[in-house]
C-alpha cells in the first residue's frame, strides 16, 4: 500500500524540512518503519522500546490509532497517516 505520512513541524528538522513522505506499508507500524529507514533521526523521537512515545498521537485518515489496533492498524492505498503532538489542549 502506498500511504502519505504527514510529519509535524516539530520533527521536520529530522526530515530535511519535508512535511509529507510517500511510503509503502500494510500497517501503520510498517509505514513508520519505512519513514525511519529514510530519516533515522525520527525513530527515537517518535518511538521508545518499539512503541510510540506517550506524547505522540497517530491518526489514520483522522482516526486515532489507539481506538483501532495501534501500530498494527491496517492502512489502505492512499491513506493519510498523521503524526501530531499529544500535549495540546485543555
Amino acid at each position, binding site marked *: 500500500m502506498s500511504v502519505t505520512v504527514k510529519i509535524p513541524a516539530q520533527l521536520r528538522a529530522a526530515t530535511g524540512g519535508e512535511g509529507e513522505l510517500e511510503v509503502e506499508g500494510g500497517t501503520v507500524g510498517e509505514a513508520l518503519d519505512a519513514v525511519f529507514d529514510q530519516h533515522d533521526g525520527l525513530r527515537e*523521537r517518535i518511538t521508545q522500546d518499539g512503541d510510540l512515545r*506517550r506524547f505522540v498521537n497517530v491518526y489514520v485518515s483522522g482516526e486515532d490509532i489507539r481506538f483501532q489496533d495501534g501500530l498494527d492498524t491496517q492502512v489502505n492505498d492512499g491513506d493519510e497517516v498523521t503524526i*501530531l503532538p*499529544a500535549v*495540546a*489542549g485543555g
Partner: protein
Amino acid sequence: MALEGLRCKECAATYALEARYVCEECFGPLEVSYDHSGLDPDEARRRIQAGSAGIWRYADFLPFSERPPSWRHSLEPGLTPLVRADRLAERLGLGEVWIKNDAANPTHSFKDRVVTVAITKARELGFETVACASTGNLANAVAAHAAACGLRSFVFVPADLEEQKLLATSVYGPRLVGVRGNYDDVNRLCTELCESRPWAFVNVNLRPYYSEGSKTLAFETVEQLGWKLPDRVVAPIASGSMFTKLAKGMSDWIDLGLVEGELPTFCGAQALGCSPVATAFAEGWEVCKPERRPETIAKSLAIGDPADGPYALDLARRTGGRIESVTDEEIRDGIRLLAETTGVFTETAGGVTVAVLAKLAEAGEIDREERVVAYITGEGLKTLDAARESYRMHEIEPTLDAFEAEFKGAGVSA
C-alpha cells in the same frame, strides 16, 4: 530573579521563550523555567501585597520579564473569594471546608487566568490573532480578552455545546467555529491548523505560558488562608493542566520559603461519562486510555484524551490522594448541595467537584481535622440545562387567601 526559558518536562531539553510547546527531541511538553535564586521570601510577600487586586500581584512568578508586563490589558482576573463553607462541611460530616469560587472572574470561570497570561504573551510576541480549542469556558475567555485588547480571535468548539456558552462567547465578536465532533476532534484540528496559521493558539503553541496562569489559583489560596497551605485539595480534571499547576504553584512557594509545610493531598474530580484519568487511577495505569465518546452533562470536562493525564495521575498518587468520578445525577446533586449550603451556583464542572468531595467524605477518606479547599471553576448560569426541572414553583393568585391556602400556617408563629 529571571525567566530562564522553556524546558521539556520529560527530557529537560531547553528552548528559547517563543511560541513553542513540544520538545523536538522527545515530543514531551515544554514548561517555563525560572531562576528564583536569591529571592527573599519576606520581600516577595511584600511585593505581592503591594500589587494589583488580581493575578498580576503574582507577576514575579509568571512568565514575563517585566513585572507586571506592559502588554497586560484591562480585564484582570483573580483574587476571587475563598469562602469558609461551614454548612457544607456540616452536611458532609467534615471539619473545615473552603470554597474557592473562581466563577467570580470577568467571564465567570478560571479560564480568565490562563487566557490573560497567554494573551499578554501573545501580544508581547507580536501576534495579531489569538485562537483556541475549547469546551466552552475557554472560548468565552479568549473572545472577551481578545476584545478587551483589540485582537482578532478564532474560537473552535464542539458544535453541540451548551447554548449559554455559545451566546456568552459570540457576544464579544469572535470568529466562532463549531466543529462537528467532540473536543478531541477540535483539539486535533487546532493542532494541525497551528502549523499553517500565524496565530497564537492559547492552549496549543502558547500552552506553556497559558498553563502558568493556573498557578495563581494556588498562590491566592495560600495568601487567602493567611500564608498557609490546605491539607487537601479537591479540583476538577479535564486535561489535567490546572490540577497539576495548582500543585506546581504550591510546591514552588514551599521551595522558595513563601509558605511552610507540605504539598496537600491532591484529589481529582471527573465525570463518569468522561473519566480517562479516574479510570487509569483505579486501574493503576501510568498513562490514560483515551475516552472515544465522552458522554456527560459536564461538557467543560469532556476531554477524552487528556494531555496532562500522566502528570495528574502521578500527582494524586505521590500526595496520597485519589481521582474519582461521579454520575450525571451526582453532578446535579452536587450543584444543588453547593447552592443550598453556600449560596454559590456553579456549573456542571463544579457539581463534579462537590460530588467527588461528598463521595470522599462518605467513604471516610477525609479526616475531620483536615482543612479542605474545593475549587469551583465555573458559573451555574452557563449550564442552566443541568438545573432545569430541578425546582418547584408555588404559582398562586395575587390574594392573601391564595397565599394562606398554599402556605397554611407556615412561619406565622416564628
